[in-house]
């Protein structure tokens, strides 16, 4: 609900501001306007050997991604937008134009002034309007390999993932799909994955590095009782291996045609993930509608998608109750009630449980400093005190 104009007002559409302003290949940075999308930038960069890897699963606007602190399946390797925005041009509520790190500055490190850049990243338009963003670029990996393994239990799958992270492997993608998810994809895409908790892995690096990483991960999987380690290195085969994970959302919806998905999102410390996930999967077994669990387990982040009848208040309430329990489970072990999907409108009240009143007051003082008249996307990000 982050973009809903709950108090009416003016909706400013920046899609036509779509120039790629600068590309500095030698310094691995680029600057783009709001209308520039992720794929457009990467296509533009393709001959430089560089790319912007954050991939939230859609061809999203890069400034929009900055505004929502977007994350992606490879956050485990590259971080989220927070780690990759070097500078922003922002128009404030009073019309002043500010460059958060200084105009055209793109030093990798700086101790100058306050870190304004990261206050705006993730602010969902509540502090100002982003009109350009400078991004950190990365080299296109020399080699990418993918693997899929299924496990006899949820615990075995998640434990393996946790161990892969704890072994310090710089894994590029580490995704979990539960049995329901696999069943739905098998039926939706006509595939024949083993119906069991499944882990999808992707490794990036030099030829030798990728082999090493994959070997260690394969060993850990085996030790936890993992099944056949299916592995692929060419683009077509990798796409096939990962197609289950890519189609998971639509496959889930297809479990109950006509349904809408209510998607939850939590993030917990990796060492707590196994317990939280096992508990959550136990809890949702009792749901009266189909559900699928998808996890960016490398970050301790996972989603449950509930396929509900949107006209049924009973189902919506039931799904929200599951979501609330899930969020509280995450908060109880030092996690957050929103790993990457943002607060919008639905989770505002939970922030009172995630943050102390003091912290919320400190956040409000930032909001009041930048937007004393509460004109910028009012009613979002922070709950009323």
């Amino acid at each position: 609900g982050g973009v809903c104009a709950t108090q009416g007002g003016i909706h400013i559409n920046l899609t036509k501001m779509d120039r790629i302003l600068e590309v500095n290949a030698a310094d691995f940075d680029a600057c783009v306007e709001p209308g520039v999308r992720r794929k457009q930038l990467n296509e533009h960069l393709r001959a430089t050997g560089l790319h912007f890897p954050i991939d939230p699963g859609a061809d999203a606007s890069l400034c929009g991604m900055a505004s929502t602190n977007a994350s992606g399946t490879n956050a485990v390797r590259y971080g989220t937008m927070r780690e990759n925005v070097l500078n922003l041009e922002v128009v404030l509520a009073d019309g002043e134009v500010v460059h958060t790190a200084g105009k055209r500055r793109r030093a990798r490190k700086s101790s100058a002034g306050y870190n304004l850049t990261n206050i705006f990243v993730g602010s969902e338009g509540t502090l100002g309007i982003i009109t350009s963003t400078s991004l950190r670029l990365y080299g296109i990996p020399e080699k990418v390999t993918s693997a899929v393994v299924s496990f006899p239990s949820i615990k075995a799958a998640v434990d393996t993932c946790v161990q892969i992270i704890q072994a310090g492997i710089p894994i590029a993608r580490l995704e979990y799909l539960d049995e329901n998810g696999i069943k739905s994809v098998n039926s939706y895409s006509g595939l024949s994955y083993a119906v069991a908790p499944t882990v999808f892995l992707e490794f990036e690096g030099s030829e030798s590095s990728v082999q090493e990483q994959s070997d260690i991960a394969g060993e850990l999987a085996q030790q936890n009782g993992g099944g056949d380690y299916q592995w692929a290195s060419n683009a077509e085969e990798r796409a096939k291996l990962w197609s289950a994970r890519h189609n998971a959302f639509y496959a889930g919806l297809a479990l109950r045609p006509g349904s809408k998905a209510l998607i939850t999102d939590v993030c917990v410390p990796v060492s707590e993930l196994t317990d939280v996930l096992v508990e959550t999967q136990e809890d949702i077994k009792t749901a009266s509608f189909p559900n699928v669990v998808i996890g960016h387990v490398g970050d301790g982040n996972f989603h449950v998608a509930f396929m509900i009848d949107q006209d049924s208040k009973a189902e919506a309430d039931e799904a929200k109750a599951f979501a609330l329990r899930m969020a509280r489970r995450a908060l109880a072990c030092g996690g957050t009630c929103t790993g990457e999907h943002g607060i919008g409108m639905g989770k505002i009240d939970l922030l009172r449980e995630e943050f102390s009143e003091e912290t919320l007051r400190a956040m409000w003082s930032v909001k009041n400093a930048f937007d004393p008249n509460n004109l910028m996307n009012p009613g979002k990000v922070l709950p009323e005190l």
Partner: protein
Amino acid sequence: MSLRVLVGCKRVIDYAVRVRVKPDSTGVVTQGVKHSMNPFDEIAVEQALQLKEQKLASEVIAFSCGPAQCVETLRTALAMGADRAVHVTVEGAEYENMQPLAVAKIMKKLVEKEDANLVIVGKQAIDDDCNQTGQMLAGLLGWSQGTFASKVDVDGEQLKVVREVDGGLETVQVSLPSVVTADLRLNTPRYATLPNIMKAKKKPMDKLSAGDLGVDVSSKVSMVGVSEPPVRQAGSKVESVSDLVQKLKAKGAIA
């Protein structure tokens, strides 16, 4: 037969650019506009590299003719994995008026100079859409040709080429030496990675002029004018079938 492959790499306006016609209608705006390797030529380079990886080709030579900036295009080919590059310089008005026949003549000289036995080029360039150079070159050399290739297999002294044609797919067998033109589905070109981009800077790049090769690139074709397509006229909605019939009659579309 170990293949020595010559690959044509044309520098064109990048496919993602919104092309604008110059105000004086003499051509399109190219100044300050992003250029890159013709996408079909990227596919050609990729095919040559795959042949090398399969140990069927011993050397891949990338070629481009045009102004100084063509060096960038050739560096991309080298970064993808080509062994050497040849830049044939053609500048200014001569370059702007250059026709596929001249390019084919240059390539013929290079084929002879480099002792190549396989030429792979994109099926057409995305700026002029001519789709002529490969075929003309084959004619000038007296070589076989496998055009619009979506699959190429080496079978001894022959190539089996699956061609994308209007009716579907046609498979032909051609004897080497041959000219192949690459179609969209032949392969997915690899990205140039940073270490390879660095290595490419050290790979050999020869520079020649068309004159050095004894080729006259002057054109018998002159560009009369370039204009944008007419602005699409708004249509109109009609309320009923009889309205529609009336309007069609008024336009003379039906009796």
